């Protein structure tokens, strides 16, 4: 499912957060949006998710203009995106429960996805009983269980230590490729951007749009 952003402008009160932004993400691509804090990366993500009102321009996903949220566009948050009163399994079940999947089907799916992200046996743990990295695995499992067409990730590994972050980056690329979802991944970490993205867009200092190969070539040279 392709995402096309055309002349996007978003304002918070009188502050212009994004101005006249154009962006294209092709189906199955992992696009990384990098840039310093406050450059509007998160706002861009929230706009694609349908969580913010757009002042001008439009966002088109698979030929349909975005108006409000949809289960086709899932979001992964930095931390605390899990509901703390639900166990890991019940968090993963939530998107299925919302669209009326019966309990047995939900349970099986939750077990399967938690297993996929390496958390078999942690179904009944509450988020507070899990480490930061494990909580992000649960979020990932939840997102995959939702089977969205587009995954929007808002600095999901920023709070993790280096080793856990590296593990998670590997896992994310693996499962997203497997699921074939279109992904927009926001980070302020250039290293992460290069490691994950098929393409990297740097926001803030006049947009730069580069392919991974170009960056790698530059680094190698």
């Amino acid at each position, binding site marked *: 499912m392709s995402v096309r952003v055309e002349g996007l402008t978003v304002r918070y009160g009188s502050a212009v957060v994004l101005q006249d932004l154009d962006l294209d993400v092709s189906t199955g691509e992992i696009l990384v949006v990098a840039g310093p804090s406050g450059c509007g990366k998160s706002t861009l993500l929230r706009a694609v998710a349908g*969580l913010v009102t757009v002042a001008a321009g439009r966002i088109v996903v698979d030929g349909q203009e975005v108006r409000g949220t*949809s289960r086709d566009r899932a979001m992964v*948050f930095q931390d*605390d*995106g*899990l509901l703390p009163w639900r166990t890991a399994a019940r968090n993963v079940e939530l998107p299925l429960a919302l669209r009326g999947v019966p309990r047995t089907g939900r349970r099986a799916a939750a077990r399967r996805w938690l297993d996929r992200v390496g*958390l078999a046996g942690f179904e009944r743990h509450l988020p*507070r009983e899990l480490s930061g990295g494990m909580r992000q695995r649960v979020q990932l499992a939840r997102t995959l269980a*939702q089977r969205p067409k587009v995954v929007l990730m808002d600095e999901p590994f920023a709070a993790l230590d280096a080793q856990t972050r590296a593990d998670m980056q590997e896992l994310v690329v693996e499962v997203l490729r497997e699921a074939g979802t279109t992904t927009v991944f926001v980070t302020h970490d250039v290293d992460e951007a290069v490691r994950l993205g098929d393409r990297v867009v740097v926001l803030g200092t006049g947009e730069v749009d580069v392919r991974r190969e170009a960056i790698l070539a530059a680094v190698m040279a």
Partner: protein
Amino acid sequence: MTARVERRTVNVRIGSRVRNGHVVGTRWVLRIGSLTAGLLLWQVLTATGTTAWLRFDRLPTVVEVARRLVEQAGTAEFYTDLVTSLGRIAAGFLLAAVLGTTLGIVIARSRLVGDVLQPLLEVVRPIPAIALVPIAILLFPTDEQGIVFITFVAAFFPILVSTRHAVRALPTMWEDAVRTMGGSRRHVLLKVVLPGTLPGVFGGLSVGMGVAWICVISAEMISGRYGVGYRTWQAYTIVDYPGVIVGMVTIGLLGWLTSSAVELAGRRVTRWLPREAKP
């Protein structure tokens, strides 16, 4: 990596249980000891008729009060009073719990309803419930309904205010998460707002229960025909001082029991909260 994490969790649990087991005994000795010391001091001061500015010579002793309590516990009247007061609390408090949480959520979630209701509620809120007794007497056909009304008003505001704050303090991320899963407004309410505000709501319920007792007893003293408050005031007017203290102790115990029940229910539904291990 996962195996390592699992082992760590288990160790922490065992560790805290051992530590608690060691401390529990000492803490109970302290609690019971302080209660006994209080009673002992009271007995000594009243039995010796100590008068040093404060005049303990006219107060009944612990033994007199205990004897009176046993005597009253043998009468049907005592239980009628208990049941009457508890019934008033139950009616007023439950009504306040339902209306207080519902309105608290609606006011916090809807700007329109907030604008319409909040000014009204904010003007009524500072009025002590007990000051509404004249209104209650005029407004309701029976005293009984008036007393339940007073109890309701007393518990209603703490519950309303706590719920409103709890809803406004909810992290927006939880709502965003449910919406990007395709959740509707109703889903956000059921899956995020209701469970997420429970800790705050129970804070309000605890306070509400305490205030409800203060007001039901006061209202009974003014206009009741049965009830622990009415009986306590009656004892005072016929100079039965041990009877007054029996009434006070009964009120204290009932208040403590009902507050504990609320507290316990609150803990049960908010097990997910991070909290220090307490015995």
